[in-house]
């Protein structure tokens, strides 16, 4: 495998042994990752998009040397993560969104300083980078605050700042904006983009289950579900798969006979949600003409149309098209857009 790639995996897999429950004899296993082949180029901002439980964190843990794969192999910056984990660690850092770091009794500045020591930074370099990152995440005026007194969001920002202190070649961000407010998410995303653009050779792998985040940030996105990568391309190319399809969102009064829609000719994918007193139907249609039949079916089922919208394809539609179901019942926060 060649050195041009920041990350390369070949048939990478991970099986977890689950704790045996009482009464069970055979040990249970869970396949969290299976046959993952991927190549992330140097300088790329690469996204791993998938619902909860897809295996994103597992992949990140393997690449950051926290977890051994049970099959396949992986190179980070050309170095085998199993053979030489310490060499890998010199080049990387990781931030998990929703996590914090350090000790409550230390100030923000002291906590960050502590982590720089694990990378052998001199105090001068450490101070410079801490100042720079505190500025970025907007915690400069809190540098002397004990982290214990910070709000959860501020603690997450401090942890985000930590990830950049050793100036890693390859940075792993595991759902970095998880639980953060819209404004903060915006700031962090902008910085992430700038960080990759302005520093040649820096690579960033980001996992997310926010479609819009992947779409907006990433040069390329791998869609992952149940431990397997289903597609990998630029967001534009991924959406281009649905170029010829028509995507409609309908809202109707509550309907019950919805599965009849799947049988209609010309309906490639169909997803239904019940939302506060109405039914929301999402269709991927082979062509627009099918819509007429759908509207007939709604009427025949005793429903009334409340709204109808034709959409441009999103990554969510790509996911629906690939796996035939939505991204779980979580609301994807659409306010992340623009």
């Amino acid at each position, binding site marked *: 495998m060649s050195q041009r790639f920041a990350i390369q995996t070949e048939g990478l897999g991970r099986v977890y042994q689950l704790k045996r429950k009482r009464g069970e004899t055979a040990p249970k296993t869970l396949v969290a990752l299976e046959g993952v082949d991927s190549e992330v180029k140097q300088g790329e901002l690469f996204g791993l998009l998938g619902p909860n439980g897809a295996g994103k964190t597992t992949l990140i843990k393997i690449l950051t040397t*926290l977890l051994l794969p049970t099959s396949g192999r992986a190179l980070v910056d050309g170095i085998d993560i199993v053979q030489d984990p310490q060499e890998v660690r010199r080049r990387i850092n990781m931030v998990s969104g929703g996590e914090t770091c350090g000790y409550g009794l230390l100030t923000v500045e002291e906590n960050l300083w502590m982590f720089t020591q694990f990378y052998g930074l001199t105090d001068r370099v450490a101070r410079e980078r801490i100042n720079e990152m505190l500025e970025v995440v907007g915690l400069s005026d809190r540098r002397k605050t004990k982290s214990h007194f910070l709000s959860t969001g501020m603690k997450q920002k401090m942890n985000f700042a930590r990830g950049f202190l050793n100036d890693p070649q390859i940075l792993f961000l595991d759902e970095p904006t998880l639980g953060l407010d819209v404004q903060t998410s915006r700031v962090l995303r902008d910085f992430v983009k700038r960080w990759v653009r302005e520093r040649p050779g820096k690579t960033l792998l980001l996992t997310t289950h926010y479609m819009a985040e992947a779409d907006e940030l990433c040069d390329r996105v791998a869609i992952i579900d149940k431990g397997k990568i289903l597609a990998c391309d630029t967001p534009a190319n991924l959406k281009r798969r649905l170029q010829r399809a028509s995507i409609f969102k309908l809202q109707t009064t509550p309907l019950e006979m919805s599965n009849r829609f799947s049988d209609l000719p010309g309906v490639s994918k169909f997803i239904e949600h019940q939302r506060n007193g109405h039914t929301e139907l999402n269709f991927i249609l082979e062509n627009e003409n099918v819509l007429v039949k759908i509207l007939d079916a709604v009427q025949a089922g005793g429903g009334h149309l409340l709204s109808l919208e034709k959409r441009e394809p999103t990554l969510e539609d790509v996911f629906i098209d690939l796996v035939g179901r939505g991204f779980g019942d979580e609301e994807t926060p659409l306010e992340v857009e623009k």
Partner: protein
Amino acid sequence: MKNFRRDLNIFLRTVRGRSYPRLIGMQREKSWIFFDTFLPLLATTAYVFIYRALNAPPEFTGFVVLGGAMTAYWLNVLWSMATQLYWEKETGNLSLYLIAPTSRMAILLGMALGGMAATTLRAVTVLLLGSLLFDVTFSVENWGALLLVFVLTLVALYGLGMIFASLFLLWGREAWHLAQLFQEPVFLISGFYFPVRNLGFWVSIGASIIPITFGLDAMRQLLYPQAQWGFLDVNIEIAVLALLSVLFLVLAHRMLLWMETLARREGRLTVRGQ
């Protein structure tokens, strides 16, 4: 050579970095004044009055005060050092330590040194207060040996603490009960408040696996050279302490590497709430 300098730099900085929160953090938490000095002092006072009521020789007072001061270290090892990795896991720090290109031993060493330094403040407070309150005088002849015994005791004790840290990480919550179980019996068999040899030869030998036992015994012999309460010859006790120091450090190192391998293989040890 270049790599060696780089690694040494990271090692030393890691020790410094990780000792800092214990050094500073522990002093910022003011409750230590009560728990770590007042409580040992209280136990010490009780024993002083008992010995006085029994008309024990006056050296017994100094003897008990020393035991009280050393209590601070034992409490620190059992409640801070041992539980540290477990806490690091629960707060999410452990995985951040493990992804850093640093020696894991340096992290533990940092914790230990920080804890030791912070605890010394407590131990000295107990020693000074106790000595003032009860008019204690020592008659040290060999300061060098006393210092050696003290340092060896701490090295061995914190080495043991490092081993505990890995075990606690492995056993999680159950380890807490274990620590509780350990605390009182060790006060008894290590002779914090009375000469250990009163327990008989075999119990004393058994108790010597806890470095405090011989540490206290040797220090007391050196503080009161004329008193006749030592268990074994000071030189033998020093040799045993040196042996324990090496043994515990080597074992702690092994345990830590094993723990990391286990964590990477099973994927559970660094995960919160597991």
